[in-house]
């Protein structure tokens, strides 16, 4: 069976101008990332800001060109597909619903864009499909006539989901789809995404910094740190028995609403990760509290972890 998404040895570098008095920097945003997402499943990607998770999303959407490596979508090389074929396969839902809808267009025109861009649908067909998808995501036909500024954050995100699904793609890349929303609205959107996936048989790549959200939606989770996937496993296994010290720290730092438990000491120093200055050896070693000498010199290679996962740590 072909995977919905397959990424092989993906790498992405940027050059950043350091200004007048500093040298140019080379930022490695994604560093040799390999994974597969089986059709119909949800891969959650977690990590802190600057870990490269959004860059990864952009690479898989074809918005950025990788420095090296390949992206296969539905078994085909992403860059062999023309823009229309790509649009029929894979669609995005972005973080900020205030930035992802063109403020000058009506909602129904925004939602219709993937159809009109194909150039093969009749106007009646486009109208029928737009009306159908708007209803499916819980927006009334009257909402379709409005401008984005007249909608609330949650309604805008519903419109963005409608746009992503109107062409009936197989794969949706959700890049922090609920991070800009209030918790009560977040729950509405998460429930909607879950329903749609079940009913339409979609595959999600779900990117978030919120572990609780990822645990709720993902069947498999990958943890990114400084551009690499340092641990990947089935969701339950990863949350029950995290192997990488970074995963452990991330899990510990989630503050569940349980009064009286205080704030845990996660024991990470303040050596903040800097993608333009990746440390030698294990890239997590400056913050790791169990690091040994070998971690400072030798980069760990991926090791299998039951039942289906991997971890990159000498000590796991």
């Amino acid at each position, binding site marked *: 069976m072909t995977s919905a998404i397959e990424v092989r040895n993906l790498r992405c570098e940027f050059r950043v101008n350091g200004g007048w008095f500093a040298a140019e920097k080379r930022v490695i945003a994604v560093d040799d990332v390999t994974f597969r997402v089986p059709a119909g499943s949800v891969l959650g990607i977690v990590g802190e800001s600057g870990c490269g998770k959004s860059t990864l999303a952009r690479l898989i959407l074809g918005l950025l060109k990788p420095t090296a490596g390949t992206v296969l979508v539905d078994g085909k090389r992403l860059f062999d597909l023309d823009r229309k074929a790509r649009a029929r396969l894979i669609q*995005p839902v972005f973080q900020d619903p205030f930035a*992802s809808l*063109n403020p000058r267009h009506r909602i129904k025109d925004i939602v219709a864009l*993937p159809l009109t861009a194909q150039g093969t649908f009749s106007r009646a067909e486009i109208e029928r499909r737009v009306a159908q998808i708007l209803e499916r995501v819980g927006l009334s036909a009257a909402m379709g006539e409005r401008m984005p500024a007249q909608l609330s954050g949650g309604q805008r995100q519903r419109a963005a989901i409608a746009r992503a699904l109107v062409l009936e793609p197989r794969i949706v890349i959700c890049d922090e789809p609920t991070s800009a929303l209030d918790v009560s609205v977040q729950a509405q959107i998460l429930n909607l995404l879950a329903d749609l996936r079940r009913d339409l048989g979609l595959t999600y790549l779900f990117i978030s910094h919120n572990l609780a959200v990822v645990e709720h939606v993902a069947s498999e989770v990958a943890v990114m740190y400084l551009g690499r996937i340092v641990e990947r496993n089935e969701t339950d296994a990863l949350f029950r028995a995290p192997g990488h010290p970074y995963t452990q720290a991330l899990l510990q730092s989630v503050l569940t609403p349980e009064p009286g438990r205080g704030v845990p000491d996660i024991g990470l120093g303040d050596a903040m990760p800097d993608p333009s200055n990746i440390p030698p050896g294990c890239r997590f070693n400056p913050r790791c509290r169990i690091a040994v000498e070998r971690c400072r010199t030798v980069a760990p290679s991926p090791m299998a972890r039951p039942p289906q996962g991997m971890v990159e740590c000498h000590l796991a």
Partner: protein
Amino acid sequence: MSEPIAIQGPLQAPLTSRVGMTGFAIGIAIVGIIAVAALIGNQFVPHDPFTQDLGNRLKPPFWMEGTQAGHLLGTDQLGRDYLARLVYGARISLLIGIMTVITSGVIGITLGVLGGFFGGRVDDAVLFAITTRLSIPVVLVALAVVGLMGSGLGLVVATLGLLLWDRFAVVARATTMQIRNLDYVNAARCAGASTMHLLVKEIVPNIASHLAVVATLEMALAILLEAALSFLGLGVPPPLPSWGLMIAEGKDYMFFSAWVIMIPGVALFVLVLGINLVGDGLRNLLGSERLR
């Protein structure tokens, strides 16, 4: 490259004040009245702007002593009716302003949007063009072109149009750069939209309001520059009554009859002020104060 123009986000809430809107309304009224006068004013003025009457030279306007009935604003050094010339001059100013904005807008917006959208080499080339253009002294070069190629309305428009696109380009480039990485543009890309669609439907509508402000500024600038060129004798040729030329022709008499330079000067000032008020009103509507 230092960019003297910084722009706030296009998505910012409009910041309207009642006072700002009053200015906007006054500006529109001024420009509207002058435009109407330029279009049909000659129907109501009983004189021809070119007919000389050497017996009635330098007659003062109606509020001064010694005024001549029928010449509401007096006559010039050749006895031509000043009101008729003023109305005709409005036509020249507006024509130059509008034509220059169209020419320079097409050049500048095209360059700026392309540079801002594609980045890389394309942008380097655009930036080079802008830098080069900014380093050319406008007045001197405009004077030289007119001086060496002969004066004429068309030539003035062409010269100014080719020289005044820089601000359009700078603003179009900066706003495009801000927008091109916004997620609605990314979403349109992922939707399979063509580059043409991205430029025309996603980018340009969102920078149009900023460009409208630039257009008012450039129109005002073009009108002032034409007046300056004509004043220096290298713009619109006589006997066409450009306001700048009227001031130049009146210069020799200004110490005795100050009104000969005051009337066209005030007309010029009011028109430019009106256009600037419109621009400022637009800017307030947009809430982008730093767009100078």
